[in-house]
Structures are given as C-alpha cells and as structure tokens.
C-alpha cells in the first residue's frame, strides 16, 4: 500500500516550515471582494455602462459588445433552430374569439398604416439598449379589423419557432405603444432579431416582445407564456415586476 502513497513511505510530508497561511487570506479576500462587488454593483454598473457605451461607439472590432453591459442586443432563442421566413412564405393569422379571422402576408402588413416609436429596450436580465426605433402596425388596429367579441379578455401570441408563446390582457394589447413590428433601428427586422415580424410591447420587459410572430389568438383569459411558465411575471411592466426597479423605457 505504501507504493500507492504519493510521497514515499511513511506519513504525508508536513509542510516543511509551517509558514503564513497566505492561501487562506487570498481565498477569503477574493470572497470579500466578490461581496463588495455585489454591494457596489449599482454604482459600478452605471459608471461602466457610460464608459463602455461611449467606447462601443468608436470600436470598429465590435469586441466591446461582448463585454458585460457593452451595449447592443443579445440573441436568445429557446428553440434549437428557427426556420427562416420571408415575403413569400410569411403568414400572420388572427383568430380565436373574433368575428372575422384573417391571415396577413408581409405585404398586407406593410400596406397598413405604420407607427414609429423610439424608446429604450430593457431586458429582464439587465441589459438595456437606449433609444431604439421600432416601426409597424398597431396591434389594436389588427384586433379592431378582426372584430373582438365581448367575451374576450386576453390575447395569446404564437411564434414560428414552434416553441415560444406570450400573452397580454386585452387592455394591454390595445395600448398605443404595442406594435406588430416590421422594422427595428430603421431596418427591416432580420431573422436573428425575430424577423420578419415580431411583437413590440414597449412598456414591458423585452421577453414580452415575442420574436418570429406568426399567430394572434384572442382568448377569454390570459395563459402564461413560455418564460412565465418558468417563473417570470405575466404583467411585465419595466421597473414594476420581476423584482427589478429599472427606469421606465420611454
């Protein structure tokens, strides 16, 4: 058995001179710094956001975008792969408790009056993109065109990634700052950002703004959506939900 012992026969070699326990101090110091970081995070974060936001504007490599709080959007998808849709094969259906169910093509949506909003985007995980223009058709216009029945109380959204769902109460859905968005940052919305058509719910955390929107179903009651089944708030007002106190996005 002695041959299995790492340090030759006999007992483990005691540290030759006892020495100072610097290792323990470094370990405890690291933990202390971590705790201090959590306590001072709000101030540090504000300072860094300002600095990195300015640096990102002058950074041709785009590497600052990879730093925490480096600004810009991040790609989140809950599905393993998402089909690409374009003007020829994209369809948006409006159905459920409505008098006139309807299917829109991309050109149909583009032909309707467009509304442009410029507000901040706030993600529930902390990142924020200031002053982002969104352009599209007011959801209330599509609901009015379909003729919502009096028994209805909510709207459910489905997506062509086949997985994601979202929902709003009818009152929330009728707000003037809720769009079926076709353009973001004054460009047609690309696939990675949820194009060609995504929802845009300006006053709420960005997970409410479902990407790759393909279905609008009017229902009686709110059904929690994908992330809401996993613990996020259904009424996701920025600054008043999910245990966060971010500034409003207007």
């Amino acid at each position, binding site marked *: 058995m002695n041959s299995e012992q790492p340090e*030759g026969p006999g007992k483990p*070699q*005691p540290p030759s001179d006892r020495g100072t326990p*610097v290792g323990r101090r*470094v*370990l405890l110091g690291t933990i202390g710094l971590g705790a201090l970081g959590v306590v001072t995070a709000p101030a*540090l974060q504000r300072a860094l956001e300002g600095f990195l936001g300015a640096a990102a504007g002058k950074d041709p490599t785009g590497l600052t975008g990879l730093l925490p709080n480096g600004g810009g959007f991040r790609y989140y998808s809950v599905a393993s792969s998402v089909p690409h849709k374009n003007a020829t094969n994209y369809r948006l259906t409006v159905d459920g408790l409505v008098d006139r169910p309807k299917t829109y093509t991309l050109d149909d949506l583009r032909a309707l009056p467009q509304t442009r909003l410029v507000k901040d985007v706030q993600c529930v995980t902390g990142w924020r993109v200031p002053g982002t223009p969104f352009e599209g058709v007011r959801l209330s216009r599509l609901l009015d065109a379909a003729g919502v029945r009096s028994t209805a109380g909510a709207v459910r959204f489905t997506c062509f990634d086949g997985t994601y769902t979202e929902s709003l109460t009818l009152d929330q859905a009728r707000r003037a700052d809720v769009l079926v968005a076709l353009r973001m940052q004054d460009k047609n919305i690309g696939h*990675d950002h949820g194009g060609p058509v995504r929802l845009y719910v300006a006053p709420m955390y960005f997970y409410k703004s479902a990407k790759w929107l393909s279905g609008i179903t009017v229902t009686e009651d709110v059904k929690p959506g994908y992330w809401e089944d996993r613990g996020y708030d259904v009424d996701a007002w920025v600054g008043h939900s*999910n245990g966060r*106190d971010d500034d409003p996005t207007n």
Partner: protein
Amino acid sequence: MTLRTEAHTPPVSEVRRFGPAQRWVHRTTAALMGVCVVTAAFLYIPQFAELVGRRELVVRVHECAGLALPVPLLVGLVSRWFRADLGHLNRFGPHDRIWLRAALRRDKRRSSRPAAKFNAGQKIYAAWIAGATLVMLGTGLIMWFTHLTPLMWRTSATFVHDWLALTIGIVLAGHIGMAIGDPEARNGLRTGRVSREWAEREHPLWRP
C-alpha cells in the same frame, strides 16, 4: 567475439508527486469547470447562442455543473494526502516571497525562483480560483432563485457574475497555457509521477 556492453542508460529516476485523490479531484473539477465555461459561452456570446439555441436546457446544464463544482474538492478532503497538499498550497514561506518578487520583475532565472512542492504562483492561483468559484456559486444562486433574495440583488449579482466570469476565463486560459508549456507537469497530474530531474529543477526545495 567481444560484446560491447551497451552504454548504460539508467532508468529515468522518477518521484511520486500526486496520489489518486489529487489526480481525480483535479480531473473532475477540470471537467466541471469546462462544462461551466462552454455552456457560459453558449449563453453569453451571441454567435454561439445562435448556433445552439435551447436556452433553457443550456441554463440547466450550467447550473448543475456550477453546483457540482466544489463537490470533488469536498470529497477529496477524506484523503489525508489531499489535505496535506492543501496545507502546502496554503502555507507561504520566505522562499515564496522571493519567487513572487522575481515573477513581478519578470526574472525567469531558476535561481531566483525557489519553490517547494508548489511554487508561489500555483499557490496564489489555487487560493484565488477557489475563492472566485465560491463567489460565482453565490451570485449564481442569487440569479437562479430570484424570489428568495430582495430587490436589486439579482441585478448586482448578475453584474459580478458576468465580470468575474470574464476574469476567470482569462486566468483559466493562462493556467491551461502554462500546463501546455510544461509536459512534465501535466505528466505529474496524469500519472502521478515526475522525473527527479524535473522535480529538482522546478521545485528545488521539495523533498519528495
């Protein structure tokens, strides 16, 4: 017929550096840390996130690997050989001060880098990565169980978790880079044995 005796090459003399406990703790910790780093990249770097998607699954794997990260070390504590090595890592002698000074001056001469079983750089690394892992674990738990902690805490924890992750990534790359540059050190962790010549060169104060 005269047979010339072949030039006598003595078997390379080897010394025992690590037992099974140390080697398995290192191996399993490295694997779990690897899973944490790879899943973090899938969650964090947009190009990788687009490649993989399945955000919920990746988050779950990341959480489980992170939670398991301290387990190999805790299990290893039953081995007195492992505990003895933790003692070596913890205690700093006068020679470690000399080593650190030389490292700061970028003095690479062997004579100015005295080391016992572990050199001062390895000792600092071990203590720092242990502390950093615990900070990642704490902030990770705050982000995971959002409704258990007060307002604000999650944002702050996310901030620390993100920046420390970046730091750990850089330090870990240095750790792996140095291992790649020293095959005999890797040999020590793979087989448990190193050549006496290497031990006397790299760790002159170590008495195996």
